[in-house]
Protein backbone atom coordinates (compact mmCIF):
# COMPACT_ATOMS: atom_id res chain seq x y z
CA UNK A 1 0.00 0.00 0.00
CA UNK A 2 1.34 3.44 -0.88
CA UNK A 3 2.03 5.73 2.04
CA UNK A 4 -0.86 7.95 3.01
CA UNK A 5 0.96 11.24 2.51
CA UNK A 6 1.66 10.24 -1.08
CA UNK A 7 -2.00 9.70 -1.88
CA UNK A 8 -2.96 12.95 -0.23
CA UNK A 9 -0.43 14.80 -2.37
CA UNK A 10 -1.75 13.01 -5.43
CA UNK A 11 -5.27 14.10 -4.60
CA UNK A 12 -4.18 17.71 -4.09
CA UNK A 13 -2.38 17.73 -7.42
CA UNK A 14 -5.46 16.33 -9.10
CA UNK A 15 -7.63 19.07 -7.64
CA UNK A 16 -5.24 21.76 -8.83
CA UNK A 17 -4.74 20.31 -12.27
CA UNK A 18 -8.44 20.25 -13.07
CA UNK A 19 -9.35 23.34 -11.01
CA UNK A 20 -12.06 21.35 -9.28
CA UNK A 21 -12.56 23.68 -6.31
CA UNK A 22 -13.02 26.74 -8.52
CA UNK A 23 -15.44 24.86 -10.73
CA UNK A 24 -17.52 23.69 -7.77
CA UNK A 25 -17.48 27.19 -6.34
CA UNK A 26 -18.77 28.66 -9.60
CA UNK A 27 -21.43 25.97 -9.93
CA UNK A 28 -22.65 26.63 -6.40
CA UNK A 29 -22.76 30.38 -7.11
CA UNK A 30 -24.86 29.80 -10.22
CA UNK A 31 -27.12 27.49 -8.25
CA UNK A 32 -27.69 29.87 -5.34
CA UNK A 33 -28.35 32.74 -7.70
CA UNK A 34 -30.82 30.91 -9.92
CA UNK A 35 -32.40 28.77 -7.15
CA UNK A 36 -34.07 26.27 -9.49
CA UNK A 37 -36.62 23.81 -8.18
CA UNK A 38 -34.52 20.90 -9.43
CA UNK A 39 -30.92 21.64 -8.55
CA UNK A 40 -29.47 18.41 -9.96
CA UNK A 41 -30.95 18.91 -13.41
CA UNK A 42 -29.77 22.51 -13.40
CA UNK A 43 -26.18 21.57 -12.52
CA UNK A 44 -26.26 18.80 -15.12
CA UNK A 45 -27.36 21.33 -17.75
CA UNK A 46 -24.58 23.74 -16.73
CA UNK A 47 -21.98 20.99 -16.95
CA UNK A 48 -23.25 19.89 -20.35
CA UNK A 49 -23.09 23.45 -21.67
CA UNK A 50 -19.56 23.66 -20.36
CA UNK A 51 -18.64 20.39 -22.03
CA UNK A 52 -20.05 21.56 -25.35
CA UNK A 53 -18.38 24.93 -25.01
CA UNK A 54 -15.01 23.31 -24.37
CA UNK A 55 -15.35 21.17 -27.45
CA UNK A 56 -16.46 23.97 -29.75
CA UNK A 57 -14.75 26.97 -28.08
CA UNK A 58 -17.97 28.93 -28.07
CA UNK A 59 -20.18 30.78 -25.56
CA UNK A 60 -19.04 29.92 -22.05
CA UNK A 61 -21.90 30.27 -19.55
CA UNK A 62 -20.84 33.58 -18.04
CA UNK A 63 -22.09 34.47 -14.64
CA UNK A 64 -22.11 38.17 -15.27
CA UNK A 65 -23.21 39.49 -18.59
CA UNK A 66 -22.51 42.93 -19.97
CA UNK A 67 -25.32 44.80 -18.21
CA UNK A 68 -24.13 43.45 -14.84
CA UNK A 69 -20.60 44.66 -15.50
CA UNK A 70 -21.91 48.11 -16.44
CA UNK A 71 -24.07 48.35 -13.29
CA UNK A 72 -21.20 47.23 -11.11
CA UNK A 73 -18.97 49.88 -12.64
CA UNK A 74 -21.62 52.53 -12.08
CA UNK A 75 -22.01 51.49 -8.44
CA UNK A 76 -18.33 52.08 -7.88
CA UNK A 77 -18.09 55.24 -9.95
CA UNK A 78 -20.24 57.31 -7.63
CA UNK A 79 -19.18 60.67 -9.03
CA UNK A 80 -20.04 59.69 -12.58
CA UNK A 81 -16.60 60.60 -13.90
CA UNK A 82 -16.39 57.56 -16.17
CA UNK A 83 -13.44 55.95 -14.38
CA UNK A 84 -12.68 54.22 -11.09
CA UNK A 85 -9.64 54.16 -8.87
CA UNK A 86 -7.16 51.35 -8.88
CA UNK A 87 -8.08 50.26 -5.35
CA UNK A 88 -11.74 49.95 -6.30
CA UNK A 89 -10.79 48.00 -9.41
CA UNK A 90 -8.74 45.53 -7.42
CA UNK A 91 -11.48 45.10 -4.78
CA UNK A 92 -14.05 44.49 -7.50
CA UNK A 93 -11.95 41.80 -9.12
CA UNK A 94 -11.44 40.17 -5.74
CA UNK A 95 -15.19 40.22 -5.03
CA UNK A 96 -15.90 38.55 -8.36
CA UNK A 97 -13.38 35.86 -7.53
CA UNK A 98 -11.33 36.73 -10.56
CA UNK A 99 -8.07 37.47 -8.88
CA UNK A 100 -6.32 36.05 -5.86
CA UNK A 101 -6.05 38.21 -2.76
CA UNK A 102 -2.33 38.63 -3.04
CA UNK A 103 -1.99 38.98 -6.78
CA UNK A 104 -0.04 42.04 -7.79
CA UNK A 105 -1.79 44.03 -10.49
CA UNK A 106 -0.01 46.65 -12.53
CA UNK A 107 -0.93 50.13 -11.48
CA UNK A 108 0.27 51.96 -14.53
CA UNK A 109 -1.02 55.28 -13.30
CA UNK A 110 -3.92 55.47 -15.73
CA UNK A 111 -7.38 55.43 -14.27
CA UNK A 112 -9.54 52.45 -15.11
CA UNK A 113 -12.35 53.18 -17.54
CA UNK A 114 -15.46 51.13 -18.15
CA UNK A 115 -13.94 49.53 -21.24
CA UNK A 116 -10.74 48.49 -19.48
CA UNK A 117 -12.76 47.07 -16.61
CA UNK A 118 -15.06 45.16 -18.91
CA UNK A 119 -12.23 43.77 -21.00
CA UNK A 120 -10.28 42.66 -17.96
CA UNK A 121 -13.33 40.94 -16.40
CA UNK A 122 -14.13 39.15 -19.65
CA UNK A 123 -10.54 38.12 -20.20
CA UNK A 124 -10.22 36.67 -16.73
CA UNK A 125 -13.57 34.89 -16.91
CA UNK A 126 -12.60 33.27 -20.18
CA UNK A 127 -9.26 32.17 -18.80
CA UNK A 128 -10.93 30.63 -15.77
CA UNK A 129 -13.59 28.75 -17.67
CA UNK A 130 -11.19 27.46 -20.27
CA UNK A 131 -9.23 25.76 -17.56
CA UNK A 132 -12.14 23.52 -16.50
Amino acid at each position, binding site marked *: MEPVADRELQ*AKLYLEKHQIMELLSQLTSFL*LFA*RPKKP*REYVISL*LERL*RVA*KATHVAFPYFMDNSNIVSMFE*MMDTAGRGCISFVQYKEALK*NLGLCAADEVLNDDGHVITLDTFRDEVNKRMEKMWSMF
Partner: protein
Amino acid sequence: MDATTAPHHIPPEMPQYGEDYHIFEMMQNMLEQLLIHQPEDPISFMITHLRRNNDNVPKVVILGPPASGKTTIAMWLCKHLNSNLITKESLLEREFSRLSLEAKNYYQVYKKIPNSILVGLVQERLNEDDCLRKGWILDGIPERREQALMIQTLGLAPKHVIVLNAPDTVLIERNVGKRIDPVTGEIYHTTFDWPPEPEIQNRLIQPEGISEIETAKKLLEYHRHIIRILPSYPKILKTISSDQPCVDVFYQALTYVQSGHRCNAPFTPKVLLCGPLGSGKKLQATLLAQKYGLVNISCGQLLKEAMAAKSSFGELIQPFFEKRMTVPDNIITKVLADRMEQQDCIQKGWVLHGFPRDLDQARMLNSMGYNPNRVFFLSVPLDSILERLTLRRTDPVTGERFHLMYKPPPTIEVQARLLQNPKDSEEYIKLQTDLFYRNSGDLEQYYDRAIIVNGDQDPYTVFEYIESGIINPLPRKVT
Protein backbone atom coordinates in the same frame (compact mmCIF):
# COMPACT_ATOMS: atom_id res chain seq x y z
CA MET B 1 -17.50 53.12 2.11
CA ASP B 2 -18.65 52.36 -1.37
CA ALA B 3 -20.14 49.29 -2.94
CA THR B 4 -16.90 47.39 -3.01
CA THR B 5 -15.82 47.92 0.56
CA ALA B 6 -19.20 47.69 2.36
CA PRO B 7 -19.76 44.32 4.04
CA HIS B 8 -21.58 41.77 1.95
CA HIS B 9 -25.17 41.06 2.93
CA ILE B 10 -26.10 37.76 1.41
CA PRO B 11 -29.83 37.77 0.71
CA PRO B 12 -31.47 35.27 3.10
CA GLU B 13 -33.09 33.34 0.26
CA MET B 14 -29.72 31.89 -0.65
CA PRO B 15 -28.82 30.09 2.59
CA GLN B 16 -32.46 29.04 2.92
CA TYR B 17 -32.38 27.47 -0.54
CA GLY B 18 -29.06 25.79 0.21
CA GLU B 19 -30.53 24.27 3.37
CA ASP B 20 -33.80 23.12 1.82
CA TYR B 21 -32.25 21.40 -1.15
CA HIS B 22 -29.13 20.10 0.63
CA ILE B 23 -26.82 21.79 -1.84
CA PHE B 24 -23.78 21.54 0.42
CA GLU B 25 -24.21 17.79 0.88
CA MET B 26 -24.64 17.32 -2.86
CA MET B 27 -21.44 19.19 -3.62
CA GLN B 28 -19.56 17.43 -0.85
CA ASN B 29 -20.57 13.99 -2.14
CA MET B 30 -19.56 14.93 -5.66
CA LEU B 31 -16.16 16.12 -4.46
CA GLU B 32 -15.68 12.89 -2.50
CA GLN B 33 -16.37 10.79 -5.56
CA LEU B 34 -14.06 12.94 -7.68
CA LEU B 35 -11.23 12.49 -5.22
CA ILE B 36 -11.76 8.73 -4.93
CA HIS B 37 -11.86 8.03 -8.63
CA GLN B 38 -9.80 10.97 -9.97
CA PRO B 39 -11.15 10.68 -13.53
CA GLU B 40 -9.31 12.21 -16.43
CA ASP B 41 -12.46 13.92 -17.65
CA PRO B 42 -14.05 15.34 -14.53
CA ILE B 43 -16.98 17.01 -16.29
CA SER B 44 -18.37 13.83 -17.83
CA PHE B 45 -17.79 12.02 -14.55
CA MET B 46 -19.73 14.68 -12.65
CA ILE B 47 -22.61 14.51 -15.12
CA THR B 48 -22.84 10.73 -14.71
CA HIS B 49 -22.63 11.00 -10.94
CA LEU B 50 -25.39 13.61 -10.75
CA ARG B 51 -27.63 11.63 -13.07
CA ARG B 52 -27.23 8.56 -10.88
CA ASN B 53 -28.45 10.47 -7.82
CA ASN B 54 -27.37 7.86 -5.31
CA ASP B 55 -26.21 10.07 -2.44
CA ASN B 56 -28.75 8.65 -0.03
CA VAL B 57 -28.63 4.95 -0.77
CA PRO B 58 -27.87 2.75 2.23
CA LYS B 59 -24.27 1.63 2.70
CA VAL B 60 -24.30 -0.52 5.79
CA VAL B 61 -21.94 -3.00 7.38
CA ILE B 62 -23.33 -5.40 9.97
CA LEU B 63 -20.90 -7.25 12.20
CA GLY B 64 -21.47 -9.56 15.12
CA PRO B 65 -20.63 -12.89 16.71
CA PRO B 66 -22.23 -16.11 15.43
CA ALA B 67 -25.85 -16.56 16.58
CA SER B 68 -26.30 -12.86 17.24
CA GLY B 69 -28.96 -12.60 14.55
CA LYS B 70 -26.77 -10.76 12.05
CA THR B 71 -28.11 -12.45 8.99
CA THR B 72 -31.72 -12.05 10.08
CA ILE B 73 -31.30 -8.35 10.73
CA ALA B 74 -29.38 -7.90 7.48
CA MET B 75 -32.13 -9.65 5.50
CA TRP B 76 -34.91 -7.65 7.11
CA LEU B 77 -33.04 -4.37 6.56
CA CYS B 78 -32.49 -5.36 2.96
CA LYS B 79 -36.15 -6.00 2.37
CA HIS B 80 -37.20 -2.83 4.15
CA LEU B 81 -34.71 -0.52 2.45
CA ASN B 82 -34.92 -2.34 -0.87
CA SER B 83 -31.20 -2.80 -1.07
CA ASN B 84 -28.70 -5.55 -1.91
CA LEU B 85 -27.48 -8.06 0.64
CA ILE B 86 -23.90 -9.24 0.31
CA THR B 87 -22.51 -12.13 2.33
CA LYS B 88 -19.37 -14.20 1.95
CA GLU B 89 -21.44 -17.10 0.61
CA SER B 90 -23.18 -14.93 -1.98
CA LEU B 91 -19.81 -13.60 -3.16
CA LEU B 92 -18.49 -17.13 -3.64
CA GLU B 93 -21.53 -18.20 -5.60
CA ARG B 94 -21.34 -15.45 -8.20
CA GLU B 95 -21.46 -16.48 -11.82
CA PHE B 96 -19.29 -14.99 -14.55
CA SER B 97 -16.54 -14.05 -12.13
CA ARG B 98 -13.05 -15.42 -12.45
CA LEU B 99 -12.19 -14.25 -8.96
CA SER B 100 -15.18 -16.03 -7.52
CA LEU B 101 -14.16 -19.33 -9.10
CA GLU B 102 -10.63 -18.92 -7.79
CA ALA B 103 -11.97 -18.16 -4.32
CA LYS B 104 -14.25 -21.20 -4.37
CA ASN B 105 -11.42 -23.52 -5.32
CA TYR B 106 -9.17 -22.10 -2.63
CA TYR B 107 -11.96 -22.44 -0.06
CA GLN B 108 -12.55 -26.07 -0.88
CA VAL B 109 -8.94 -26.88 -0.18
CA TYR B 110 -8.01 -24.60 2.71
CA LYS B 111 -11.43 -23.77 4.19
CA LYS B 112 -10.76 -20.03 4.13
CA ILE B 113 -10.27 -17.24 1.60
CA PRO B 114 -7.20 -14.98 1.41
CA ASN B 115 -7.88 -11.34 2.29
CA SER B 116 -6.95 -9.88 -1.06
CA ILE B 117 -9.28 -12.18 -3.01
CA LEU B 118 -12.20 -11.47 -0.70
CA VAL B 119 -11.65 -7.74 -0.96
CA GLY B 120 -11.34 -8.03 -4.72
CA LEU B 121 -14.68 -9.85 -4.81
CA VAL B 122 -16.27 -7.16 -2.66
CA GLN B 123 -14.94 -4.45 -4.93
CA GLU B 124 -16.26 -6.20 -8.02
CA ARG B 125 -19.68 -6.63 -6.47
CA LEU B 126 -20.00 -3.12 -5.08
CA ASN B 127 -19.14 -1.53 -8.40
CA GLU B 128 -21.96 -3.30 -10.16
CA ASP B 129 -24.90 -1.31 -11.36
CA ASP B 130 -27.52 -2.50 -8.87
CA CYS B 131 -25.27 -1.80 -5.90
CA LEU B 132 -24.57 1.69 -7.18
CA ARG B 133 -28.25 2.36 -7.64
CA LYS B 134 -29.78 0.74 -4.57
CA GLY B 135 -26.95 0.63 -2.08
CA TRP B 136 -25.57 -2.38 -0.25
CA ILE B 137 -25.58 -4.15 3.09
CA LEU B 138 -22.48 -6.20 3.94
CA ASP B 139 -23.17 -9.05 6.35
CA GLY B 140 -20.13 -10.21 8.27
CA ILE B 141 -17.54 -8.58 6.01
CA PRO B 142 -14.87 -7.35 6.89
CA GLU B 143 -13.77 -10.19 9.11
CA ARG B 144 -10.29 -8.88 9.73
CA ARG B 145 -8.73 -5.48 10.19
CA GLU B 146 -6.64 -5.90 7.04
CA GLN B 147 -9.78 -6.43 5.02
CA ALA B 148 -11.38 -3.35 6.55
CA LEU B 149 -8.37 -1.22 5.65
CA MET B 150 -8.15 -2.61 2.13
CA ILE B 151 -11.82 -1.93 1.46
CA GLN B 152 -11.34 1.60 2.69
CA THR B 153 -8.33 2.32 0.48
CA LEU B 154 -10.37 1.23 -2.52
CA GLY B 155 -12.74 4.07 -1.72
CA LEU B 156 -15.68 1.93 -0.62
CA ALA B 157 -16.66 3.32 2.74
CA PRO B 158 -19.86 2.40 4.59
CA LYS B 159 -22.05 5.14 5.99
CA HIS B 160 -23.28 3.11 8.97
CA VAL B 161 -21.63 0.24 10.83
CA ILE B 162 -23.74 -1.80 13.23
CA VAL B 163 -22.15 -4.23 15.67
CA LEU B 164 -24.39 -6.69 17.46
CA ASN B 165 -23.42 -7.70 20.92
CA ALA B 166 -24.52 -10.29 23.45
CA PRO B 167 -22.97 -12.29 26.29
CA ASP B 168 -21.22 -15.46 25.13
CA THR B 169 -23.35 -17.84 27.21
CA VAL B 170 -26.52 -16.51 25.62
CA LEU B 171 -25.04 -16.95 22.17
CA ILE B 172 -23.87 -20.51 22.75
CA GLU B 173 -27.29 -21.52 24.02
CA ARG B 174 -29.01 -19.74 21.17
CA ASN B 175 -26.94 -21.36 18.49
CA VAL B 176 -27.97 -24.87 19.51
CA GLY B 177 -31.54 -24.15 18.48
CA LYS B 178 -30.69 -22.68 15.09
CA ARG B 179 -32.57 -24.08 12.10
CA ILE B 180 -32.44 -23.07 8.46
CA ASP B 181 -35.11 -23.22 5.79
CA PRO B 182 -33.28 -24.59 2.74
CA VAL B 183 -35.75 -23.02 0.29
CA THR B 184 -35.81 -19.38 1.37
CA GLY B 185 -32.56 -19.32 3.33
CA GLU B 186 -34.28 -17.76 6.35
CA ILE B 187 -33.06 -18.63 9.80
CA TYR B 188 -35.44 -19.83 12.50
CA HIS B 189 -35.04 -20.90 16.09
CA THR B 190 -36.60 -23.78 18.00
CA THR B 191 -37.57 -21.54 20.95
CA PHE B 192 -37.56 -17.90 19.94
CA ASP B 193 -38.58 -17.82 16.34
CA TRP B 194 -40.55 -20.88 15.33
CA PRO B 195 -42.32 -20.55 11.95
CA PRO B 196 -46.11 -20.80 12.13
CA GLU B 197 -46.70 -22.72 8.89
CA PRO B 198 -46.33 -26.53 9.16
CA GLU B 199 -44.77 -26.93 5.69
CA ILE B 200 -41.89 -24.71 6.70
CA GLN B 201 -41.61 -26.55 10.02
CA ASN B 202 -41.24 -29.86 8.24
CA ARG B 203 -38.49 -28.86 5.91
CA LEU B 204 -36.23 -27.09 8.40
CA ILE B 205 -32.77 -28.57 8.69
CA GLN B 206 -30.11 -28.28 11.29
CA PRO B 207 -27.05 -26.49 9.96
CA GLU B 208 -23.62 -27.88 10.75
CA GLY B 209 -21.32 -26.43 13.31
CA ILE B 210 -23.89 -25.43 15.92
CA SER B 211 -22.81 -27.62 18.80
CA GLU B 212 -21.65 -25.82 21.92
CA ILE B 213 -17.98 -26.57 21.45
CA GLU B 214 -17.91 -25.37 17.88
CA THR B 215 -19.80 -22.21 18.72
CA ALA B 216 -17.36 -21.49 21.55
CA LYS B 217 -14.44 -21.90 19.17
CA LYS B 218 -15.99 -19.55 16.62
CA LEU B 219 -16.70 -17.03 19.36
CA LEU B 220 -13.07 -17.05 20.46
CA GLU B 221 -11.95 -16.31 16.94
CA TYR B 222 -14.59 -13.61 16.52
CA HIS B 223 -13.51 -11.79 19.67
CA ARG B 224 -9.89 -11.91 18.63
CA HIS B 225 -10.65 -10.14 15.37
CA ILE B 226 -13.50 -7.76 16.13
CA ILE B 227 -11.47 -5.82 18.66
CA ARG B 228 -9.12 -4.74 15.87
CA ILE B 229 -11.84 -3.88 13.37
CA LEU B 230 -13.85 -1.54 15.59
CA PRO B 231 -11.30 1.33 15.64
CA SER B 232 -11.46 1.52 11.84
CA TYR B 233 -14.93 3.01 11.96
CA PRO B 234 -14.79 5.59 14.73
CA LYS B 235 -17.64 7.94 13.98
CA ILE B 236 -20.11 5.69 12.23
CA LEU B 237 -20.19 2.76 14.62
CA LYS B 238 -23.20 1.78 16.71
CA THR B 239 -23.37 -1.16 19.05
CA ILE B 240 -26.75 -2.77 19.56
CA SER B 241 -27.35 -5.43 22.17
CA SER B 242 -28.84 -8.46 20.50
CA ASP B 243 -29.91 -9.96 23.82
CA GLN B 244 -33.43 -8.62 23.26
CA PRO B 245 -36.34 -9.55 21.01
CA CYS B 246 -35.57 -9.54 17.31
CA VAL B 247 -38.00 -6.79 16.44
CA ASP B 248 -36.45 -4.43 18.99
CA VAL B 249 -33.00 -4.98 17.53
CA PHE B 250 -34.38 -4.43 14.07
CA TYR B 251 -36.15 -1.23 15.05
CA GLN B 252 -32.99 0.19 16.60
CA ALA B 253 -30.93 -0.78 13.56
CA LEU B 254 -33.45 0.74 11.17
CA THR B 255 -33.65 4.06 13.04
CA TYR B 256 -29.88 4.24 13.09
CA VAL B 257 -29.47 3.53 9.41
CA GLN B 258 -32.02 6.15 8.51
CA SER B 259 -30.40 8.89 10.57
CA GLY B 260 -27.80 11.08 8.94
CA HIS B 261 -24.43 11.98 10.35
CA ARG B 262 -23.43 15.44 11.44
CA CYS B 263 -22.37 17.42 8.43
CA ASN B 264 -20.40 20.63 7.87
CA ALA B 265 -23.13 22.37 5.91
CA PRO B 266 -23.67 26.00 6.95
CA PHE B 267 -26.82 26.05 9.03
CA THR B 268 -28.74 28.86 10.69
CA PRO B 269 -30.83 27.34 13.45
CA LYS B 270 -34.43 28.53 13.60
CA VAL B 271 -35.73 26.77 16.66
CA LEU B 272 -39.26 26.61 17.98
CA LEU B 273 -39.85 25.46 21.54
CA CYS B 274 -43.37 24.33 22.40
CA GLY B 275 -44.66 23.12 25.70
CA PRO B 276 -47.13 23.79 28.48
CA LEU B 277 -46.63 26.38 31.19
CA GLY B 278 -43.65 25.54 33.36
CA SER B 279 -42.04 23.08 30.97
CA GLY B 280 -38.82 25.08 30.89
CA LYS B 281 -39.09 26.79 27.51
CA LYS B 282 -37.76 30.10 28.70
CA LEU B 283 -34.80 28.50 30.45
CA GLN B 284 -33.85 26.36 27.48
CA ALA B 285 -34.21 29.32 25.14
CA THR B 286 -31.87 31.37 27.29
CA LEU B 287 -29.31 28.56 27.40
CA LEU B 288 -29.48 28.11 23.64
CA ALA B 289 -29.20 31.83 22.96
CA GLN B 290 -26.23 32.03 25.25
CA LYS B 291 -24.35 29.09 23.83
CA TYR B 292 -25.01 29.50 20.13
CA GLY B 293 -25.51 33.23 19.83
CA LEU B 294 -29.10 32.88 18.65
CA VAL B 295 -31.64 35.64 19.18
CA ASN B 296 -34.02 34.74 21.99
CA ILE B 297 -37.54 35.73 20.94
CA SER B 298 -40.05 35.31 23.71
CA CYS B 299 -43.49 36.31 22.56
CA GLY B 300 -44.64 37.57 25.95
CA GLN B 301 -41.42 39.52 26.39
CA LEU B 302 -41.77 41.19 23.01
CA LEU B 303 -45.27 42.38 23.80
CA LYS B 304 -44.22 43.74 27.18
CA GLU B 305 -41.25 45.52 25.61
CA ALA B 306 -43.52 47.07 22.99
CA MET B 307 -45.78 48.37 25.74
CA ALA B 308 -42.91 49.72 27.80
CA ALA B 309 -41.44 51.47 24.78
CA LYS B 310 -44.84 53.05 24.20
CA SER B 311 -44.54 52.35 20.50
CA SER B 312 -47.57 52.36 18.22
CA PHE B 313 -47.96 48.62 18.80
CA GLY B 314 -47.59 49.21 22.52
CA GLU B 315 -50.63 51.44 22.57
CA LEU B 316 -52.66 48.85 20.71
CA ILE B 317 -51.65 46.12 23.11
CA GLN B 318 -52.11 48.04 26.35
CA PRO B 319 -55.91 47.76 26.62
CA PHE B 320 -55.76 44.00 26.18
CA PHE B 321 -53.16 43.64 28.91
CA GLU B 322 -55.11 45.83 31.26
CA LYS B 323 -58.25 43.80 30.82
CA ARG B 324 -56.25 40.54 31.03
CA MET B 325 -57.45 39.34 27.66
CA THR B 326 -55.28 37.57 25.11
CA VAL B 327 -53.86 39.88 22.48
CA PRO B 328 -55.38 39.19 19.03
CA ASP B 329 -53.31 37.23 16.56
CA ASN B 330 -52.79 39.90 13.92
CA ILE B 331 -51.16 42.30 16.38
CA ILE B 332 -48.86 39.58 17.68
CA THR B 333 -47.82 38.58 14.18
CA LYS B 334 -47.03 42.19 13.31
CA VAL B 335 -44.85 42.61 16.39
CA LEU B 336 -43.10 39.30 15.71
CA ALA B 337 -42.54 40.07 12.04
CA ASP B 338 -41.06 43.39 13.04
CA ARG B 339 -38.52 41.66 15.26
CA MET B 340 -37.73 38.73 13.01
CA GLU B 341 -36.98 40.69 9.89
CA GLN B 342 -34.15 42.54 11.54
CA GLN B 343 -30.69 41.69 10.32
CA ASP B 344 -29.40 40.06 13.48
CA CYS B 345 -32.26 37.56 13.51
CA ILE B 346 -31.74 36.61 9.91
CA GLN B 347 -28.02 36.26 10.27
CA LYS B 348 -27.69 34.55 13.63
CA GLY B 349 -30.87 32.50 13.75
CA TRP B 350 -33.53 32.56 16.46
CA VAL B 351 -35.20 30.65 19.25
CA LEU B 352 -38.92 31.27 19.51
CA HIS B 353 -41.15 30.31 22.39
CA GLY B 354 -44.62 31.28 23.54
CA PHE B 355 -45.96 31.39 19.98
CA PRO B 356 -47.68 29.75 18.09
CA ARG B 357 -50.25 28.41 20.51
CA ASP B 358 -52.63 26.86 18.04
CA LEU B 359 -52.90 25.79 14.43
CA ASP B 360 -54.03 29.16 13.05
CA GLN B 361 -51.07 30.92 14.59
CA ALA B 362 -48.76 28.24 13.21
CA ARG B 363 -50.16 28.75 9.74
CA MET B 364 -49.74 32.50 10.09
CA LEU B 365 -46.11 32.05 11.10
CA ASN B 366 -45.57 29.93 8.01
CA SER B 367 -47.24 32.46 5.73
CA MET B 368 -44.97 35.18 7.06
CA GLY B 369 -42.10 33.14 5.72
CA TYR B 370 -40.46 32.34 9.04
CA ASN B 371 -40.66 28.60 9.17
CA PRO B 372 -38.63 26.99 11.95
CA ASN B 373 -36.22 24.27 10.89
CA ARG B 374 -36.19 22.56 14.29
CA VAL B 375 -39.30 22.17 16.44
CA PHE B 376 -39.18 20.72 19.97
CA PHE B 377 -42.08 19.72 22.16
CA LEU B 378 -41.15 19.65 25.83
CA SER B 379 -43.40 17.13 27.48
CA VAL B 380 -43.78 17.38 31.24
CA PRO B 381 -46.50 15.65 33.27
CA LEU B 382 -48.94 17.86 35.14
CA ASP B 383 -47.66 16.89 38.59
CA SER B 384 -44.15 18.05 37.76
CA ILE B 385 -45.49 21.31 36.37
CA LEU B 386 -47.46 21.90 39.56
CA GLU B 387 -44.43 21.06 41.66
CA ARG B 388 -42.26 23.45 39.66
CA LEU B 389 -44.65 26.37 39.64
CA THR B 390 -46.80 26.30 42.79
CA LEU B 391 -43.75 26.30 45.03
CA ARG B 392 -42.35 29.49 43.55
CA ARG B 393 -42.10 32.39 46.00
CA THR B 394 -40.83 35.95 45.85
CA ASP B 395 -39.33 37.97 48.66
CA PRO B 396 -41.07 41.37 48.63
CA VAL B 397 -38.16 43.13 50.35
CA THR B 398 -35.19 42.07 48.22
CA GLY B 399 -37.13 41.00 45.12
CA GLU B 400 -35.26 37.70 45.05
CA ARG B 401 -37.12 34.64 43.76
CA PHE B 402 -37.06 31.33 45.57
CA HIS B 403 -38.46 27.86 45.13
CA LEU B 404 -39.48 25.91 48.22
CA MET B 405 -37.91 22.73 46.89
CA TYR B 406 -35.15 23.64 44.43
CA LYS B 407 -33.90 26.90 45.86
CA PRO B 408 -35.16 27.32 49.42
CA PRO B 409 -34.84 30.65 51.24
CA PRO B 410 -31.85 30.90 53.56
CA THR B 411 -33.46 32.00 56.84
CA ILE B 412 -36.78 31.58 58.61
CA GLU B 413 -37.56 35.29 58.62
CA VAL B 414 -37.14 35.46 54.86
CA GLN B 415 -39.41 32.47 54.55
CA ALA B 416 -42.05 34.10 56.74
CA ARG B 417 -42.46 37.08 54.47
CA LEU B 418 -42.42 35.24 51.10
CA LEU B 419 -45.33 35.87 48.76
CA GLN B 420 -46.75 33.84 45.93
CA ASN B 421 -47.59 35.27 42.53
CA PRO B 422 -51.31 34.76 41.79
CA LYS B 423 -50.27 33.45 38.37
CA ASP B 424 -48.64 30.53 40.14
CA SER B 425 -51.86 29.32 41.73
CA GLU B 426 -52.96 25.80 41.05
CA GLU B 427 -56.22 26.65 39.26
CA TYR B 428 -54.55 29.09 36.91
CA ILE B 429 -51.83 26.58 36.02
CA LYS B 430 -54.36 23.81 35.42
CA LEU B 431 -56.36 26.12 33.17
CA GLN B 432 -53.34 27.08 31.09
CA THR B 433 -52.16 23.48 30.78
CA ASP B 434 -55.59 22.35 29.61
CA LEU B 435 -55.61 25.11 27.06
CA PHE B 436 -52.22 24.04 25.78
CA TYR B 437 -53.10 20.36 25.50
CA ARG B 438 -56.27 21.15 23.62
CA ASN B 439 -54.22 22.75 20.89
CA SER B 440 -51.06 20.71 21.04
CA GLY B 441 -52.48 17.80 19.06
CA ASP B 442 -53.03 20.06 16.05
CA LEU B 443 -49.61 21.60 16.43
CA GLU B 444 -47.92 18.22 16.59
CA GLN B 445 -49.63 17.22 13.42
CA TYR B 446 -48.69 20.42 11.67
CA TYR B 447 -45.04 20.22 12.66
CA ASP B 448 -44.67 16.60 11.72
CA ARG B 449 -40.89 16.53 11.96
CA ALA B 450 -40.89 17.85 15.52
CA ILE B 451 -38.80 16.20 18.20
CA ILE B 452 -40.45 15.36 21.48
CA VAL B 453 -38.15 15.81 24.46
CA ASN B 454 -38.83 14.61 27.97
CA GLY B 455 -38.84 17.85 29.92
CA ASP B 456 -39.17 16.14 33.28
CA GLN B 457 -35.40 16.02 33.90
CA ASP B 458 -32.79 18.46 35.15
CA PRO B 459 -32.29 21.40 32.80
CA TYR B 460 -28.85 20.49 31.53
CA THR B 461 -29.94 17.03 30.42
CA VAL B 462 -32.87 18.53 28.54
CA PHE B 463 -30.49 21.06 27.04
CA GLU B 464 -28.23 18.31 25.76
CA TYR B 465 -31.15 16.54 24.11
CA ILE B 466 -32.22 19.74 22.42
CA GLU B 467 -28.65 20.46 21.31
CA SER B 468 -28.26 17.06 19.71
CA GLY B 469 -31.61 17.57 17.99
CA ILE B 470 -30.38 20.81 16.47
CA ILE B 471 -26.90 19.70 15.51
CA ASN B 472 -27.72 16.35 13.94
CA PRO B 473 -29.67 16.27 10.68
CA LEU B 474 -33.37 15.53 11.08
CA PRO B 475 -33.91 11.76 10.95
CA ARG B 476 -35.98 10.38 8.14
CA LYS B 477 -39.26 8.94 9.32
CA VAL B 478 -39.33 5.25 10.18
CA THR B 479 -42.31 3.69 8.45
